[in-house]
């Protein structure tokens, strides 16, 4: 067992993961990224373009790509699809008005061939707000149960309080790691 552990550690060290954060504008992608990276979230303005963060977590090197969600930027999302291991779809749980367009955008993404192997983590952000829908309601609205092409998980989080953020990210990383291991 000792030898295997060493082997595993070595392999983990080499492992880099590419994680793409997408979602409609105002969903909180940048806030989640900054919170995850331990930065201040006080002054975040709408993302013009994209942010990249490389961070170490659980012995993995994570390349996190946060691409702006404005309508005029969505057509550029596909430039980031290549080699994506994990897709984090961020939903503004309080934004009932646009949940339909949120579902449509997600469906388009899931049909994308280059994202076929990626694990999907749906984060229902802004759970700290009084009007937020919970993760079950969002699961229904986004028809997540119909997804058979990807490993997926839906979690209610709050980037402001940090609630459940880390554990859901751990799941994503664990799922990606498992896939890479079993594939080898």
């Amino acid at each position: 067992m000792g030898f295997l552990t060493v082997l595993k550690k070595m392999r983990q060290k080499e492992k880099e993961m590419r994680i793409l954060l997408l979602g409609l504008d105002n969903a909180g992608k940048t806030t989640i990224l900054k919170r995850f990276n331990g930065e201040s979230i006080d002054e975040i303005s709408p993302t013009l373009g994209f942010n990249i963060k490389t961070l170490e977590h659980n012995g993995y090197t994570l390349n996190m790509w946060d691409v702006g969600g404005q309508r005029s930027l969505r057509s550029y999302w596909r430039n980031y699809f290549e080699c994506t291991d994990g897709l984090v779809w961020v939903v503004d749980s309080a934004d009932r008005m646009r949940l339909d367009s949120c579902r449509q955008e997600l469906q388009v993404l899931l049909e994308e061939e280059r994202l076929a192997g990626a694990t999907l983590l749906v984060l229902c952000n802004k759970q700290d707000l009084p009007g937020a829908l919970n993760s079950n309601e969002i699961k229904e609205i986004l028809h997540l149960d119909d997804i058979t092409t990807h490993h997926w998980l839906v979690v209610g989080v709050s980037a402001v309080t940090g609630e459940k953020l880390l554990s859901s990210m751990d799941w994503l990383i664990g799922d990606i790691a498992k896939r890479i291991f079993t594939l080898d």
Partner: protein
Amino acid sequence: MEDSVDGDTGARKDLILDRINKRNKDRKNYLDVKLEQRSKETIQNEGVDFFAQTFGQRAYDIEKSILMLDMNSGDAPLPDLSKRLPEITLQIQELQRYLTASTMFLSDFKIKSCQNMLNALTSSNDEARQRLMPKKKFGFSGKKTAPKQKPLPVVVDGEPQDKKTPKKEQSGSNFTWTIANRRNAHIVLSADEVNGQDITISNLSQCLVELQGHPGSVQVSKASQCTLLCGPVARSFFAEQLDRCTVAIACQQLRLHSSHSTRIYLHVTCRAIIEDCKKIEIGEFNYDYPELEADYSASGLNKSQNNYTDVADFNWLSPDVHSPNWSLLKDHPAPNWNALRRDFLSNNNNYKDDNEEKEKTTII
């Protein structure tokens, strides 16, 4: 001579004995190594067995505690439940970690079946949580049980009589707007209805909307020739398809989409962005009322920080040339909102009868 031969044979005998001893030792060593190897293998097998046993036991324990939740739910005090549920969630997560850490020596099938077990546990835990500790739903549930009110006639006299309108349905995507489908109306939402809430407005025409207090966020979709007056919004003001509107708003973020010929008197602490907009005019926020100061502090907005001059246009990415889609209002007299309200009301009295007539006919 004989002696020497004897000595010689003695030495050879020693040599041979030595060699035999050495070979015997080698053989024993070899056996030992083999034995060790074999025992190692059994340890590994034991690892798999051990995993199966531990995993099964722990999964069983978690299942049992979920079941216990159900049985206790009748008389268990609430804080106990709120402590137990996260505990179980934590246990499940721990088990997941254990499984992930053990994937190296488990077969694919075993991983898969264990993962299925975990998924089942997670879902039953979620289900138990849903049933026993449903998330406090936001909404006017008390009003939902009341018999459906007939649509109220359009209120023109400025009193917040339309208290029944902000009825939010929680179910599915077919939510109800706070304010929707109004013409020529003066709509006032009082601070009680607005504070901390997400206000959604849709399909208005020639209305004067006043939101008192401090909303959590405001969303507007489709408004034409309207005036919106609003106190400090804690988070974002999101608007699309505004046409010839005037807005006075203080917010953390402003997002304006697909709008044109709209004037915004703005206080924004973070940044304003526009997208697919034309002829947007931005001026400094000047809406004032007695409780403004209190609303600022309640909303958490910084009154001294106003970035209204820094608007990002997503359709204009050149930093050197100013976007043609928006401009700052300069040398323009600041509007007097009270006078505007007065004008609106006096003009609207002419429409009043017409409107009420229309409402009546629709009710019949």
